[in-house]
């Protein structure tokens, strides 16, 4: 093998090794440590108030026009409802939670943002029936929210 080929193989091996080390360091390969942090009572709460309390520490949040929820007015398929929450008009946003008021367990997701992460998330959710999609945003200790009604023709909880 030429020196060049040997060098390339060595570098490749080093990079692969360090990627694993990075993942292990970031705790991605350690389930027990991370699962302990999952907010079970919030996700299992059957009413909106308890769900909000579980992730935002309060069940009342003033409405804010700085939170934009982009979701269809009518969702053809309740199993796949695209939802975007944009709170980039606000500063210091540390988390964005998405809830569906009339789902059996309203809390759907809670996104914790890093310091350089923009206050924007996009995902797809399941909705059991027509309901308000609520975004709860925590910024600098203040909790605000916005809601948007999404009509669902075929429910997505499979019930």
């Amino acid at each position, binding site marked *: 093998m030429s020196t060049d080929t040997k060098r390339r193989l060595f570098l490749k091996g080093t990079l692969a090794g360090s*990627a694993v080390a990075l993942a292990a360091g970031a705790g991605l390969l350690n389930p027990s440590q991370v699962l302990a942090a999952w907010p079970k009572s919030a996700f299992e709460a059957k009413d909106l108030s308890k769900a909000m309390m579980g992730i935002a520490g309060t069940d009342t949040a003033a409405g804010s026009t700085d939170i934009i929820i982009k979701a269809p007015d009518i969702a053809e398929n309740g199993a796949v409802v695209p939802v975007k929450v944009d709170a980039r008009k606000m500063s210091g946003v540390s988390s964005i939670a998405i809830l569906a008021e009339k789902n059996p367990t309203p809390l*759907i997701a809670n996104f914790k943002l890093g310091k350089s992460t*923009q206050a924007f998330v996009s995902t797809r959710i399941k909705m059991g029936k027509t309901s308000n999609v609520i975004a709860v945003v925590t910024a600098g200790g203040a909790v605000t929210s916005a809601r948007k009604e999404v009509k669902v023709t075929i429910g997505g909880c499979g019930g």
Partner: protein
Amino acid sequence: MAKSKIKIRAKIKKGACEVKALMKHPMETGQRKNKKTGKKIPAHFIQEVTCTHGGNTVLTAEWGGAISTNPYLSFIFDGAKKGDTITLGWLDNKGGKDSTTAKIK
């Protein structure tokens, strides 16, 4: 590393890194019933998704079973440049996990 079932795109747009990820996972809520047996299909869903860049955690997503099957996730973060690496991984309620790395384009 075992082959990942996460498809990921990380691109610099308007100076920030936009990440789009598609994960393969049944995301069972635990409420669906097996039509033949009438028994409930046990809950099996991703509980946590983590994305890191340069040693910092950019996003931690806590999920329940109401995120759609084969979840899609998109978010944007600053402070990255083309050629940097990001890592995205998930853990589910049964201890299952997957992760992948991607170069920012």
